[in-house]
């Protein structure tokens, strides 16, 4: 498969009153053409910052990309100026934001907010752009699109506004679509509709998608691959099957155990991960998850774990995969679903030295 986006050892930090926050601490992943990668993590895990760094939407200062490369079609975005980024944003990469209530300009007609992307990136007339805007609204399932283009955002419901946002994101046929928790701010029933829409659009348009969410339940539905982030790092990454049926990182276990499913609701064994994520002005020594990890080893408090490879596509960053580590069984919720997957290595291989 051809790689569209490669992120290599990305480090992003912010200068704040409270000190320097290391929001993203060495993140590497890639996205293939036509693929959906989900990035999962709690708020503050650095998932949004990572994607905003890809779009260079981080306010600088106080933010800065300290290190790393962001290769889109082999071209590094990090050194690009904001002027150079204008050609890429909207056209090659576009973004859907979390809160549709605030992401649209309240004093501009919905149609104009769509056509301005089209006019910016395509050499077409206003009439053509208008027509395209109506088509896009129809594509994202907004009825009476011809009337709706002339309305203002406040005349749309939350779910409808998110559809408009999707239409805007699709307006210039981007290669990569970043969806930053696109369903979090919506009602549950609307969430499902938007997810369905995203799936059908992916089929129709064929863009790659990075789907950010804190909800593992959403992931299984839309993603091909999943990256789990914690405290500014990717702690586990693999295909959907690998993450759901054979997770290796204790944080992923915690996420799985805290995810409600039909059975767990009956048996009442929903488990929360105790504690809160660490303060990234002062990242803890060793494994950042250790203080909340019931399976933490002594070494977790002393040294940062390396990345271990479990299969050609599956990586996890935990000392538990070290040959010297004791055998530990994941919690019940994970064990129950565990399956032997083809392609899994006999033994995990350490791929990165500390």
């Amino acid at each position, binding site marked *: 498969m051809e790689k569209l986006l490669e992120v290599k050892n990305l480090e992003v930090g912010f200068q704040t009153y409270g000190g320097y926050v290391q929001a993203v601490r060495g993140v590497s992943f890639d996205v293939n053409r036509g693929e959906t990668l989900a990035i999962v993590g709690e708020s503050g895990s650095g998932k949004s910052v990572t994607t905003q760094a890809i*779009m260079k*939407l981080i306010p600088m200062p106080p933010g800065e990309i300290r290190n790393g490369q962001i290769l889109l079609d082999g071209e590094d975005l990090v050194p690009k100026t*904001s*002027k150079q*980024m*204008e*050609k*890429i*944003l*909207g*056209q090659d990469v*576009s*973004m859907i*934001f979390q*809160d549709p209530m*605030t*992401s*649209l*300009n*309240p*004093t*501009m007609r919905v149609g104009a907010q769509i056509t*301005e*992307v089209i006019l*910016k*990136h395509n050499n077409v007339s206003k009439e053509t752009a208008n027509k395209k805007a109506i088509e896009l609204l129809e594509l994202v399932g907004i009825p009476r699109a011809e009337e709706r283009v002339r309305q*203002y955002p*406040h*005349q749309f419901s939350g779910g409808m506004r998110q559809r408009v*946002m999707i239409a*805007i*994101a699709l307006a*210039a046929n981007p290669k990569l679509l970043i969806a930053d928790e696109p369903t979090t701010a919506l009602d549950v029933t609307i969430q499902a509709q938007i997810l369905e829409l995203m799936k059908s659009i992916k089929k129709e348009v064929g863009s790659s998608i990075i789907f950010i969410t804190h909800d593992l339940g959403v992931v299984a539905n839309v993603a091909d691959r999943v990256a789990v982030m914690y405290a500014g790092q990717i702690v586990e990454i693999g295909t959907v099957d690998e993450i759901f049926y054979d997770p290796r990182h204790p944080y992923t276990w915690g996420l799985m155990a805290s995810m409600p499913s039909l059975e767990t609701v009956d048996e009442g064994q929903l488990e929360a991960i105790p504690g809160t994520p660490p303060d990234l002005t002062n990242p803890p020594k060793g494994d950042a998850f250790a203080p909340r990890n019931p399976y933490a080893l002594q070494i977790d408090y002393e040294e940062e774990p390396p990345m271990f490879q479990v299969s050609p596509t599956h990586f996890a960053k935990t000392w538990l995969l070290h040959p010297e580590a004791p055998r530990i069984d994941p919690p019940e919720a994970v064990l129950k679903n565990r399956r032997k997957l083809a392609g899994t290595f006999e033994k995990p291989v350490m791929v990165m030295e500390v």
Partner: protein
Amino acid sequence: MIKYFGKRFFYMFLSLLVIITATFFLMRLAPGNPFTSEKQLPPEIEANLNAHYGLDQPWYVQYFDYLKRIATWDFGPSFKYKGQTVNDIISEGFPVSLALGIEAIFIALALGVLLGVLAALYHNKWQDYSSMIFAVVGISVPSFIMAALLQYIFAIKLQVLPVARWDSFAHTILPALALATTPLAFIARLTRSSMLEVLSNDYIKTAKAKGLSRGVITVKHAVRNAMMPVVSYLGPLSAGIITGSFVIEKIFGIPGLGSHFVTSIQNRDYTVIMGVTVFYSILLLLSIFIVDIIYGLIDPRIKLRAHKKGA
């Protein structure tokens, strides 16, 4: 929509009634009779005059007479200058004041918005700091001091602009600048904070994610939304310009309504004070009302709220 404006109009009307009533009764409380201040008049002439001006009537008759006259746009006579009416003074002085006021409002709006937008775009850079120091100084220098300063520098020392009077465009520059300083500074601060707030909004991020250029984002998405508070400041702005004009016109010897008003205060020409006050109040309340309408037209959300309330 109509209900919204109807309510606004009603409040405007109430405020106006309070002002007219208050001025009427306060003027009756004023020390001395309008005619007794300087010359001693023979009692029969005084009685005559009182009868002529309706002062021998009971207060409520006078009050309703006054209301009636205001409703027909008759602000009454001057007690000091025989044969001159407040309407004469207004029609003579107001056009001059209006020209000066519009020039000042234009300067304040154009430069104030420009400074505020620049400061917000270059937040925490030298452009921001210098505009904001300029603005805080502008707010701290009262218009009459600014007038004196401008007169001293440009008219007396450099002699590039006329000291006073109202003959040509050159004569309007210094007074308009002096009048504009404080509102200009205020608008700059208002625009800056409003711009900063708007720029932190999600839809600005959306606009950036669309690949729009900084200029387009600033003009199309940010400034338009940031102008809302500035528009609602237009009401207080015209109030500031009007009251500011009293002193500025006096200092620059401009024959506007403000000058006449100050003269009438110094002469204790009660009916003129009263009439001009009521005229100014009508003007102000009307401009606030118009600003409300403009605001409703610019911001599409206002319509909805009014609709919902009405439904």
